[in-house]
């Protein structure tokens, strides 16, 4: 279930971004003198997860905004791509935890070429003054064909005590 944030939330620079397929290509030279290209893509998307805060007098619609970003660094190898880093990061405003103090959240699944990617390492991130970041990554090399297909990264957010929700995931969908 997709929940794009409405125009009222899109005005801030960190919200409402949809930069699917943004990439930076850099040329480099390998140890054996061959030139190769480093390809970096980082699709990102911001969604609302619909949650109601339970109060002593009822329920108040208080959705949580989450931004999911996938970072993939790869190099070309003949007709293949060799991914050298695959990372999934999630971001939510600090205010989410004021509203839902028992929340559990963070990066969920990263799916490339129809398979879930193992993300064994937890990253440390520079703090933005008003946001929490969480991410995990895989920095081993994995070879893929150069033919792109549908992929996605997910953030999960469970409000826990004091919240009622009909959905708990937000995704960035992209082609890679």
């Amino acid at each position, binding site marked *: 279930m997709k929940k794009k944030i409405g125009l009222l939330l899109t005005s801030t620079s960190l919200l409402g971004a949809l930069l699917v397929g943004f990439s930076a290509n850099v040329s480099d030279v390998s140890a054996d003198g061959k030139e190769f290209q480093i390809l970096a893509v980082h699709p990102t998307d911001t969604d609302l997860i619909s949650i109601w*805060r339970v109060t002593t*007098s009822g329920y108040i*619609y208080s*959705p949580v905004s989450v931004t999911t970003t996938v970072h993939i660094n790869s190099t070309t190898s003949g007709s293949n791509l060799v991914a050298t880093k695959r990372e999934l990061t999630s971001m939510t405003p600090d205010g989410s935890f004021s509203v839902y103090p028992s929340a559990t959240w963070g990066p969920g699944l990263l799916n490339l070429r129809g398979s879930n990617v193992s993300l064994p390492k937890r990253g440390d991130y520079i703090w933005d003054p008003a946001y929490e970041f969480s991410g995990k990554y895989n920095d081993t090399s994995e070879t893929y064909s150069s033919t792109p297909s549908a992929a996605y990264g997910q953030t999960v957010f469970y409000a826990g005590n004091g919240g009622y929700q009909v959905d708990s995931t937000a995704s960035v969908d992209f082609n890679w």
Partner: protein
Amino acid sequence: MKKNKKMAVVLSLALTGVLTVGVMSSFANSPLIRQAQTIQTKIEANNKVEKNVLLQVGATEITNIELENYKTYKSIETNPILGDAELLKEMATEKLYLQLSEDKNVAATLVDGNNEAKKYREILKEQPQEVQDTQQRLIEAMGLSEEEYWNEYAPAEYQKILSVQNLTQNLIENKELKRQESTDISKELKEFKEQLFQSAVASDKVKVIDSSVSFK
């Protein structure tokens, strides 16, 4: 004739499809419809009980009716906490946190709450039907009309939410809440609130009025 027959089959299949989706969708929401009715009935019964003050929190009180209503509303949660002492502590801490937002001059105004209500009402209109249906069921559970919800109930609740968020931001900026890498602010926040509650109990800012209440 043959063309008409084909058209009739296509139309009947399409109609069956539409009806199936409609029925599935109403079934998907039916547990919530039943829950909403149960909650509304229980709240009406709660409000008829004689009122007793259980706790004094600064200048405000927490009554048995508020506690029972909170429990009733929480019954919709996946794993609700329903123990009296734990809920009373949670309710008292919430009040203390709001009082602290006023003491630190970061509390939101009702105008802020009203603006927030308008904003979220618009955002809700853009959400999937399931979300909008859930909102309707929850408003019904509270025994309110949609206009009462958005114009009377929601502004005060958003005012509280904004006050709480403002205070958290203030505590972070003033380093009373220390952010650490790899841990959410929620852990620090939980510890801060625990201290806030314990010191309020120690200083009699939180006073037990009804002897049936115990935090030990």
